[in-house]
Each structure stands twice: as structure tokens, then as C-alpha cells.
């Protein structure tokens, strides 16, 4: 499965009401859990709807597991579990009946669907309320039952649209833990759309950032973290120049600025303690030390500031690429 991306986009354009909502998206999403980020109106939901076959590509193609999202939509939907953003259920049904119904629609025989419905409801933590009508559920329970119905038929791809929408901190944490467990189990790929960077950061290994219907960034968060070096800012008093020469001797990239300010990049084998030792030897005072690592927020903000990718490369300030692979 790794040789072929879970989702393949090739110059995908979707126009709705005469307006281009998705504009020339190209890329291969291969991660176990793919985060879909972007501001409101960026085209996240339209992309999900296109992947589900609700919208037809105006030009270009979108493929899920190698199948065309519109032509082969019935086949694709059989292997997808979808948790929509908004309330979507049949309120008049009991929880277990609703999940069983959805599992049967996904292709499970009636008896297996019932068994899986019970299991799915226990799995998400709704076991005790599974015989209650869905319209009596709280907002958090409604989110969970949407997840249960998406899981019940054992999909290959789980699409979660704003899964933590409207949840209190405890319910949110529970939802994040569930997603992490599902990801860890390994048989399900996840596509998670959210405007909460923290949710994506905690659950995904790859992120697709959309802006105005275009890809602003597409990067592997794990690789980004692994390849990311530690940047450090120091404010020193004393013999700054000889200090900088000494720490350069440790293998650090160093840049000195007026006022005793030093910016450096630490190699993996150098610790902050080594800097303190050199400073102590040279009678240099370190008044301030600020360690900074690239977070998903940095990636997102860069994507938002510097616009869409050009030929698959997102150019960032200072010439530092964001490890983007189209």
C-alpha cells in the first residue's frame, strides 16, 4: 500500500456554482494519519466531499486507493468510514440500531452488523447508552456515535471532519486517544480535517495545508520533526566573540549580533550544558537562552504567509525549506 498513496491528487479542480473551490491540487498522501488543515473556506470539506464522490472533479483526478473518486465511488465508499463535521444521524433510532443500520449499508450482513455495532459503541465509550435514542445524546455522545458508525464496518480509510468540534477538554482528550489507538492498530488510514493544529499535531504523521483551494504545504510531520535542528538564541555578557569561536568549535553554526546576541544551531551531540561549561571557562555570562523548534504551527503559519507552493516547493523566509514533498 505504501508504493501507492492512500490519496492521489492530480491537478484536481472542483468548481461549484461557477467558482473554483479546489484549484489544481496535485500530490500523493501516503501517511498513516493525514491531517487536513486550512482556514475557513480553504476547501477542506470540498476535498473530503470530492473524495467521497459527492462532487465531480471539473478537471484532473482524485484517487483513493488507486480508484477514481467519482467513477468508482461505490467501491471507494465501501472501504471508507466517514464522520461528518455537523450533526448527522437518525435521531429517532437507538444508538445500536443506527450504527447497525449504517454497518448494513456498508455491506455487513445483518447479524455481523449487529455484533459490530455493539462492539463499536463499547469501543467509543457509548456501551451503556446504546439503547437510548440518538436525539437524547449530548453533543459529545453525538460525536462519538458518528465515530462508531464510521468504524463499525471496519473501513480501510477513516475520514474525520472536525472530530473534536464542540467537545469539552475531557471529551476532546478521549476522542484524540481513540484516534491515536485506531492509528496505532495500523489497519486503518486516517484523514483528519481540523482547524485545531493541536489535534492534527497529536494524531497525524502527515499534513496537507490548503489555502484558497490550493495546496499551501504538504509535508510529513514526523520527517519534519526528525530533520529539524534545534535553533537557539543566546544573550551574553562578556567575551562574546571568543565564546562564539569556541562553540563553533563544537560543530555549531553560529551567527553573532550586536549586544551580545548569538544565534546558533546545535548539532545532535551538543547539549546546552556544553555551552554553559564553555561560558564558565571563558567567564561569559549567559543572561538568556531560548530554544526553539519548528512546530506544526510554524509550518502552518509559514504556509499561510508565503502563499501556495510553486512547483511543489514552499519557499520560506531565510531560505529554509519546509521539507515539502508534492
Amino acid at each position, binding site marked *: 500500500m505504501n508504493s501507492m498513496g492512500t490519496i492521489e491528487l492530480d491537478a484536481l479542480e472542483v468548481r*461549484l*456554482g*461557477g*467558482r473554483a473551490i479546489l484549484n489544481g491540487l496535485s500530490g500523493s498522501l501516503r501517511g498513516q494519519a493525514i491531517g487536513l488543515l486550512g482556514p475557513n473556506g480553504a476547501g477542506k*470539506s470540498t476535498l473530503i*466531499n470530492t473524495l*467521497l464522490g*459527492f*462532487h465531480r472533479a471539473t478537471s484532473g483526478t482524485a484517487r483513493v486507493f488507486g480508484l477514481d473518486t467519482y467513477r468508482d465511488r*461505490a*467501491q471507494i*465508499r*465501501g472501504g*471508507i468510514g*466517514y464522520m*461528518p463535521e*455537523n*450533526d*448527522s*444521524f*437518525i*435521531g*429517532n433510532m437507538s444508538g445500536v440500531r443506527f450504527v447497525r*443500520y*449504517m454497518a*448494513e*449499508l*456498508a*455491506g*455487513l*450482513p445483518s447479524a*455481523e452488523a449487529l455484533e*459490530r455495532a*455493539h*462492539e*463499536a459503541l*463499547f*469501543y467509543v465509550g457509548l*456501551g451503556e447508552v446504546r439503547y437510548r435514542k*440518538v*436525539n437524547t445524546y449530548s453533543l459529545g455522545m453525538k460525536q462519538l456515535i*458518528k465515530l462508531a*458508525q464510521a*468504524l463499525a*464496518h*471496519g473501513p480501510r480509510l477513516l475520514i474525520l471532519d472536525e472530530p473534536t468540534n464542540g467537545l469539552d477538554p475531557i471529551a476532546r482528550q478521549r476522542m484524540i486517544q481513540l484516534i491515536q*489507538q*485506531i492509528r496505532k*492498530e495500523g*489497519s*486503518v488510514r486516517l484523514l483528519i480535517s481540523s482547524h485545531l493544529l493541536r489535534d492534527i499535531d497529536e494524531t497525524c504523521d502527515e499534513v496537507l495545508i490548503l489555502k484558497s483551494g490550493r495546496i499551501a504545504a504538504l509535508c510529513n510531520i514526523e520527517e519534519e520533526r526528525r530533520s529539524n535542528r534545534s535553533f537557539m538564541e543566546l544573550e551574553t555578557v562578556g567575551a562574546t566573540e571568543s565564546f562564539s569561536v569556541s562553540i563553533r568549535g563544537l560543530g555549531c553554526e553560529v551567527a553573532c549580533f550586536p549586544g551580545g546576541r548569538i544565534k546558533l544551531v546545535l548539532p545532535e551531540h551538543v547539549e546546552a550544558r556544553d555551552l554553559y561549561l564553555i561560558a564558565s571557562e571563558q567567564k561569559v555570562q549567559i543572561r538568556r537562552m531560548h530554544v526553539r523548534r519548528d512546530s506544526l504551527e510554524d509550518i502552518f503559519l509559514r504556509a499561510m504567509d508565503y502563499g501556495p507552493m510553486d512547483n511543489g516547493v514552499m519557499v520560506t523566509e531565510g531560505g529554509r525549506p519546509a521539507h515539502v514533498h508534492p
Partner: protein
Amino acid sequence: MSIHKHDYRAYTGRVTPVWTRIFVLGRYSLAEAWSSKFTTVLFVVCLIPPIGALFTIYLANNPAARLLMGNVGPRVLAIDGAFFLNVLTIQSWLAMALASWIAPRLITLDLVDNALPILLSHPISRFGYVLGKCVALFATLSIVTWVPCLLLFAYQGYASPVPWAAANLRIAVGMFAGSLVWIGLISLLGLALSSWVKWRVVATGIIFAAILVPAGVGAIVSEVLRTKWGLLLNLPLVAFSLWQRLLGLHDHVDELKKLPVGAILAVLALACCLFVVMLNKRIRAREVVRG
């Protein structure tokens, strides 16, 4: 997944064929329709006229019973095409009442709770969704239209002292075909209007209004302009005209009110197309925002 272990496990079992999902929808819709006690009451009411007709057939074919009733003439208790047309007409109106009650239960609940994005994210098309709902309506309405009509026909064939069924087979075929046309028409009408109205009770009223108001307007047009074409707005009358022809009773039709078969079929087709367009607009997983 496991209830006791509380961990996720993938499903590796058998999967049903895609075409059977329509019947899953139909089955759950049927259960939803019959979950109301009023549906049961309405259904029982729908069975009263066929029981009356059954008794009439019994009397017509039982000399002793007719003697007890004062030896009424054969014309009073004639079991012929006109008799079955009356039964079909009564049952069709009752089916109309049943459909106007059931159809909103099938559609509005899904729309009010915004269930379509989830339902249609499964391997079922919008056409399949509507077909599934139609299956539920067809099953329910069949029990009060062509099924009792054909059972009465069979009983008449059995009870008649002379070979009757073979000679009147057209009546059976006509009742079956006429019922199918009517069921199709009111099912689409009920689903289409229900998909546009949020409240079930209002939807029921609107379904009746959609039948009766155009019929009234048509009657006024016909009277004022002294033309029969206004009657084309009267769907029950149009259907009745079709049934007369299907049962071979067209000789009894008033010439002034006789509608051409082509016009009847065109009106029915046009009405069905309109209902399909209405459904197509509303049965969507997502609204398309224009502008």
C-alpha cells in the same frame, strides 16, 4: 473491536452485494413506517372495504344467501369490471391516505437530522436511496391495493358457478397494472413533497393538498372554459380514466369527460418527472452554494 478488550479490530468477514443495500434501506424504512400505531390503525381501516367486497362476492355467488335477502336481482350484486373498479378506486384513496402518512416518516426524519451525508457516504447512490424508500412504500401500499384486489378476483373465480376468471382475466391484469401506476405516482408524490417540508404533519397535509387543490382548479377551469382539458389537473380522475381503460370499461365513460389515453399518459409522466426533479434537488449529501 471487542466489548471486553475495548480495542479496535478490522472486519474481515463477508460483504453483501451492493444491490442488496437498497433492500436494507427499504427494510429499515418499512420498520420506521410501521413503528407508528397510527399506521396500524390506518392499515386496518384500509382492509375494511375489501372485507365488505368479499362479503358481497360471497352473497352474489350464494343462492341461499340471496334468497334470504329477498332474492335481489343479479344486477344489484353484479361482480364485474365495474365492481372491481369501485374496489380499486376505494382502495386507491385509502392508499393515498396511507402514503401521505408514511412518506413523510421515511424522508423528513433523515432530512431533519441531516442524515443524508452519512447515509450517502455508504455505497448507495441518491437513486438507490429513493428506490429504497419506494420499496418500503411499494410493500405497504401493495397490501392495500393490488393484493386484496387480486385476492377478491381469485375468490370470485373460485366462487362463481360458471368459468369466470379466465374470461375476465383482463380485469385482474388491469387492476394490477392500474395499482402499480397509482402506487408509483403517489410514492413519488409523497417522497418529493416530504423532502421539501420539515414537519411531518404539515407534509401529510401538503400531500393531500397537492392532489385536491389542482383537482379543484381543474374543475373550475373545465366549467368556466367549458373544456375537458382542465380535468387533466385532477390526478385521481386521470388515474381513474386509465383504470377504466385497463379494465375494459371505456365504453361506459361519459364522452364529454373522456380523456385521450395519450393525454392521460403524458400527464402522469409529466407529474412523475416533476416529482423526480424535486427529489433530485433535495436528496443530496451536500448543498451546493452558488455565487
